[in-house]
């Protein structure tokens, strides 16, 4: 729902605004450029997916997801209590830990796998939808330990103290995740009460 309206607002709003400003001529080129961007981004991302999915398959054969799931079980019980399936829980744990390491490309396939498995569970237990929202929130406000790309940009811009933003970034990302997750838990509780 939200995505539908968001997308409608973004595209429709832009087209109307462009028409009002007399920029209608440039819209087709811009739209094509957008979809060209999607192709080049998919190629970049796809290279990461191939590499990390291959590597993660080895880790899976070694039993890493099971070990990680045992380690993160208390946190999971608090944030996403509705996930029953072991495989789904393991995928969630892999997804979150890859994210923390700043490996978005490795986290994405795991997150998608987790969403797919949770969607399967949803038929029997509709409440798991809340856990799916929580996974989205945790990923969309991701906790990243070290912002490597930004540091590289700061060094390139001639910063005298490029690392000055590491601790503030960590604090801000932790707060954003905590606020997002807390709001998510509030919404969950409210909707459950009304249901």
């Amino acid at each position, binding site marked *: *729902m939200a*995505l539908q309206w968001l*997308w409608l607002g*973004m*595209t429709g*709003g*832009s*087209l109307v605004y462009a028409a009002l400003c007399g920029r209608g001529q440039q819209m087709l*080129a*811009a*739209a094509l*450029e*957008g*979809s060209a961007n*999607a192709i080049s*981004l998919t190629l970049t991302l*796809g290279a990461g*997916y*191939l*590499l*990390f999915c*291959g*590597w993660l*398959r*080895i880790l*899976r*054969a070694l039993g*890493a997801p099971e070990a990680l799931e045992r380690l993160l079980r208390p946190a999971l019980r608090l944030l996403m209590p509705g996930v029953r399936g072991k495989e789904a829980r393991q995928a969630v744990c892999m997804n979150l830990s890859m994210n923390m390491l*700043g*490996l978005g490309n490795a986290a*994405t*396939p795991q997150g*998608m796998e987790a*969403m*797919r498995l949770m969607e399967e569970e949803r038929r029997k237990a509709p409440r798991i939808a809340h856990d799916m*929202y*929580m*996974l*989205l929130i945790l*990923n*969309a*406000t991701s906790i990243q*330990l070290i*912002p*490597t790309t*930004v*540091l590289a*940009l700061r060094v*390139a*811009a001639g*910063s*005298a103290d490029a690392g*000055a*933003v590491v601790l*503030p970034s960590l*604090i*801000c990302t932790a*707060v954003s*995740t905590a606020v997002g997750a807390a709001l*998510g838990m509030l919404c969950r509780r409210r909707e459950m009460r009304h249901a």
Partner: protein
Amino acid sequence: MLSGLIVPGCMLAALVAAAYRRLPAYDLFVEGAREGIGVAVRVLPNLAAMLVAVELMRASGLMDALCGLAAPAFEWLGLPGEVAPLVLLRPMSGSASLALVEKLLARYGADSRVGLIASTVMGSSETIFYTVCVYMSAVDRRATGYAVPCSLLGALAGTVLAGALFR
């Protein structure tokens, strides 16, 4: 950097462990990489939809108009108006916001207040709409419930805090 060493280290550890347990590491890698193709194929149409919308907003001038409207609100939250475009763009496009950070650092200096806040905002947040889009592409459903507003408010809290940390 740290993650530059952690990842190769983990890879090495996994390979050593696989060799020790006589697991077919090569076959496993190929099998996994094949799954990776599927992920990329699933993601592409969703990315196309989102990036077309972003590009339209940029080219139509709607993005700039929104930034102009939002600047006073950001000043009120204790953030310099110069970072308003970054805060608005950040949830929509990772590459565009990264380019904007580069521009802000060049213009105001990496160690200025604007530069520090811009770096912190960029380093502490995620491309929210893109993330939600990509993850939802795994299921054939579009219901994201309260996930997007909660994520946006969380990101806003982090952004306001960044402004407060660099007074």
